[in-house]
């Protein structure tokens, strides 16, 4: 196709407006990195047990499972939706696995059951939101009750145990020295979602939808299909987390993972993802997960009860969103 050259010599635009260093220095991820390092140093000072490799390894358990869900949730939130039912999916998947154990299933089948239930729940959410166009926040509040409710119907206030020994490998196993299986899974999932969000056309579609669903549709993106897949992925990750958690605990109750959905959302928002959609990066969420892990571990070493820790997390969440806004206002006042 012959498009005319403009009168002056064609100027190709530069690719980037600022250099790599300038872009990195002012990014959210850099801020998070600094926060992470600071907390690390504070923890080092506060307790002599902090730097023990086995302690550090133990500490990872308190965030790896949630982080796996957070990566999928991050993509969902970037696209402008949310899934508050993830903790209930864990409960239901775990219950299904416990049920399978009673039927004599072996480890491979258990894993399939866990992941499969996660996928099914995700598909249910996806159907309601993507196909019927219902608002995800209330739909997932509904499925949050429904999924956990089904778990309660099946199990009541009992617990399943009797998982095969090989099953424990996921949540309790070590790959090498202090590196746990869960840490490896965490890294793999982080990598996979990082690539998916930042390097594929699917990821671009997610950003487009989160910024402007109408324009995205008009640009040829199959918006309902993308959203459906995102809910599937979130469900799948919840299923994976269920496998890890159940394997780690060695038993199942319908009340496991209560409140996890809020921690996962906190991790995502702390990671710099805009709750309204359209922006955010996966490395940010990785750093946020590590920060929350460090905080939990550090407070734990100082024998601070979990509930007080959550005050800190709540304050951190609000401060982290408020500070840039207040900072900008201070700057414009001074002008």
């Amino acid at each position: 196709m012959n498009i005319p050259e403009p009168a002056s010599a064609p100027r190709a635009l530069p690719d980037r407006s600022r250099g790599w260093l300038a872009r990195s220095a002012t990014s959210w991820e850099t801020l998070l990195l600094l926060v992470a390092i600071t907390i690390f140093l504070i923890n080092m000072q506060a307790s002599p047990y902090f730097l023990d490799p086995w302690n550090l390894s133990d500490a990872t358990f308190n965030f790896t499972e949630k982080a796996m869900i957070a990566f999928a949730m991050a993509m969902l939130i970037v696209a402008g939706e949310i899934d508050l039912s993830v903790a209930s999916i864990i409960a239901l998947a775990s219950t299904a696995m416990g049920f399978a154990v009673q039927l004599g299933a072996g480890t491979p089948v258990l894993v399939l059951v866990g992941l499969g239930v996660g996928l099914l729940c995700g598909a249910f959410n996806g159907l309601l939101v993507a196909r019927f166009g219902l608002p995800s926040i209330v739909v997932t509040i509904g499925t949050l009750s429904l999924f956990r409710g089904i778990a309660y119907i099946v199990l009541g206030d009992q617990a399943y145990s009797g998982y095969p020994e090989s099953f424990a490998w996921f949540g309790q196993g070590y790959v090498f020295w202090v590196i746990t299986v869960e840490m490896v899974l965490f890294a793999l999932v982080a990598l996979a979602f990082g690539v998916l969000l930042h390097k594929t056309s699917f990821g671009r579609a997610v950003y487009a939808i989160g910024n402007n669903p109408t324009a995205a549709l008009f640009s040829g993106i199959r918006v309902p299909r993308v959203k459906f897949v995102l809910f599937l992925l979130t469900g799948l990750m919840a299923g994976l987390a269920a496998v890890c958690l159940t394997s780690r605990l060695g038993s199942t109750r319908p009340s496991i993972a209560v409140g996890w959905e809020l921690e996962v959302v906190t991790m995502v928002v702390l990671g710099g993802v805009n709750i309204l959609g359209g922006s955010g990066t996966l490395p940010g969420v990785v750093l946020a997960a590590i920060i929350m892990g460090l905080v939990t571990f550090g407070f734990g070493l100082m024998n601070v009860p979990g509930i007080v820790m959550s005050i800190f997390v709540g304050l951190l969440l609000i401060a982290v969103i408020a500070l840039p806004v207040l900072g900008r206002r201070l700057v414009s006042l001074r002008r």
Partner: protein
Amino acid sequence: MSLEPHGDEKPLLTLAGVSKSFPGVRALSSVSLSLFPGQVTALVGENGAGKSTLVKILTGIYWPEEGHLSIDGERQSFSSPHDAAQAGITAIHQETVLFDDLSVAENIFIGHAPRNRFGLIDGRAMRREAARLLERIGASLDPTARLRDLGIASKHLVAIARALSIDARVVIMDEPTAALSHKEIEELYELVETLKADGKAILFISHKFDEIFRIADRYTVFRDGEMAGSGLIAETDSSSLVTLMVGRSVESVFPAGSGHLGETVMQVTGYSHPTEFENIAFSLRRGEILGFYGLVGAGRSECMQSLFGVSRPSAGRVEIDGRELAAASPADAIARGLVYVPEDRGGQGAITGLPVVGNVALPSLGGLSKRGFIAMAREFALAREYTARLDLRAAALDQPVGQLSGGNQQKVVIAKWLATRPTVIILDEPTKGIDIGSKAAVHAFMRELADDGLAVIMVSSEIPEVLGMSDRVIVLREGRQVAEFISEAASPEALVRAAAGIDEAA
């Protein structure tokens, strides 16, 4: 241009030397306007002439950079729409700016409802007052009816009742009859007479000449953000108004085509929608530019969006390259080579939060990626190529599109579609709200696209553009196709008459 003195009347509201600019566009250039009590002033002009900017200044949404606004001779300064309302200026828009889930009475009195001695809203007094106001304007509406349940005509009446309730002195009506039936239009005219008798100064914006000559006393014509003329209605006629609106001669500014038309590439027959359009039929050849003209609300964009797969038609057949296209979504249309550049640039065309490269490459990502993984280098290369050819002005390819001027945003949208190598490209009001320089660039571009074998459909409300750019023009009115012209032999008047239905039995 000076206003003809009419006795020694004093204007109620005066705008003098008002200018307003936005990034890249000068929306208003030193315009003046006077509104007289008890008189209707018609404001006429094409899309993009600056009328809506003027309304926004009058209602306090924008504030001009130059010039001033006076009421009863006193300078005013509005810092919010509330101030304008306090000063007695209200507007009735095409889309009502009211609350669907509140009742008629509440809509009339929201923000200033009558209170009883406990400080609570006195519902009975409110409904009584509302009934009185409604009666005064001849509206037989139930004050307790929910606004959502009413038709657009009734909503306008509620807006007018609200204007009366805040003792508005200036009433702006922006294309109020766009969605009304004939009977409702007559009722509106009577209402305007009532308002005139009340001493209100009315600014009436309309494209419809029969209306203007029926109810207006004065006129002002805007063209390209400037005042093109004003005066008394009694001393002018529709042809003169059209000339003032259109102004410059049509041929000079537009690039001429090569004249080579290829084979028929698109065929549309009996295309209908339950509520938006009916029996649209046309064919399109390679190398051709087909213009679609009509008044605002005629259904052109709706028809194009339906072709593009955004909405579902109820009947009809669309063929591209001889094979039927049944687009269930834009993705389907794009796959067959039909692309659409929307009128709403920021809302539907470009994703303002994403960078230039992200926007330009978006529909083409399939081709740029191997097994889903994007080759970043190729993405940038694609964006670089097409933005250079369109002469895009931006700081860099990673600049967010929202920071660019209107003209450049439009270039980004066009670039993104060109990168998909389409067969048919539909451009909906492509130069709306764009500065002259970019307009010319877009026009030159369109002509080159056509000469190169693309089939182009252009929806436009600017007569010079429609006649100057297209080979043929189809006119839509109220969802129906009413005329087809060959551009070089058509006159602006003929277009306007067809679009407004001037020659039909009223």
